[in-house]
């Protein structure tokens, strides 16, 4: 069942999800996206440019945070607008993995456009990694 605009209220939490990322996932994203910047897979290059180590593509994190929104909406095509600021890098260890937490709250409702703005809080170990993360979802 897709959510219905009339049932939503500003401030209500509508989704909470976790996405796990490891180095293999970053390599997979590099291939899928065509972004082969070595800071996302090569420790030597990442540390040489002053990073704590290999970091996730900001666009991977943005993409991963969109999945729970699409699932909640019931149709990925209902996500008509999606924006973020990249505020903090996400180091991805080897060996190991990092868990990205995504929480979505209704930020605004637009009856005329039949849309809801979902404000996302995207964190790693309690620290926000995306700022102004907002998805506008068209609803019935």
């Amino acid at each position, binding site marked *: 069942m897709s959510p219905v605009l009339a049932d939503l209220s500003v401030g209500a939490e509508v989704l909470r999800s976790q996405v796990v990322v490891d180095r293999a996932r970053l390599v997979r994203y590099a291939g*899928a996206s065509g*972004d082969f910047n070595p800071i996302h897979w090569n420790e030597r290059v990442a540390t040489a440019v002053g990073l704590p180590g290999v970091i996730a593509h900001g*666009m991977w994190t943005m993409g991963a945070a969109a999945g729970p929104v*699409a699932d909640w909406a019931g149709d990925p095509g209902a996500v008509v607008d999606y924006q973020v600021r*990249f505020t903090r890098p996400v180091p991805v260890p080897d060996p190991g993995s990092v868990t990205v937490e995504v929480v979505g709250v209704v930020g605004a409702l637009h009856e005329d456009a039949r849309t809801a703005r979902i404000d996302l809080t995207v964190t790693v170990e309690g620290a926000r990694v995306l700022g102004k993360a907002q998805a506008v979802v068209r609803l019935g």
Partner: protein
Amino acid sequence: MPVDTSYAGREYPPNAVYEVSRVKLAEFADAVGATHPAHTDEAAARALGHADVIAPPTFAVVVAQRAESQLFTDEAAGIDFSRVVHADERFTHHRPITAGDRLVTVLHVDSIVERAGLAMITTRCEIGTEAGERVATVVSTLAVRPEEAA
């Protein structure tokens, strides 16, 4: 070499057609952990009213970056990619990107401003079909650190 701010306002000619394949959509969806069946199952996508499987919301970056490379690989623009940090990104979907789409992109350099030693470059990719239907708008801002801080 500093970033050439005179590139602001520039509009590039439409780039080569990007043909959207089901395989590429599935690969991208898997990489970002997008598990909704509309990305991989044609029947599920059709049940939602789509003509075929559709792209995850951020897939448009794959299409946009091909157009953006016209700016970033232009040595005269002075953008050293080793000093670039992605600042923000926005996708506006006029309709979902769908398997089988043949997309062309027009790159606009909306602004280049110097702020606290950083050059902030905002590009806009207008993605549409060959027939002229608007599909997506991708706005991206990159921060380029000055050479001495690199």
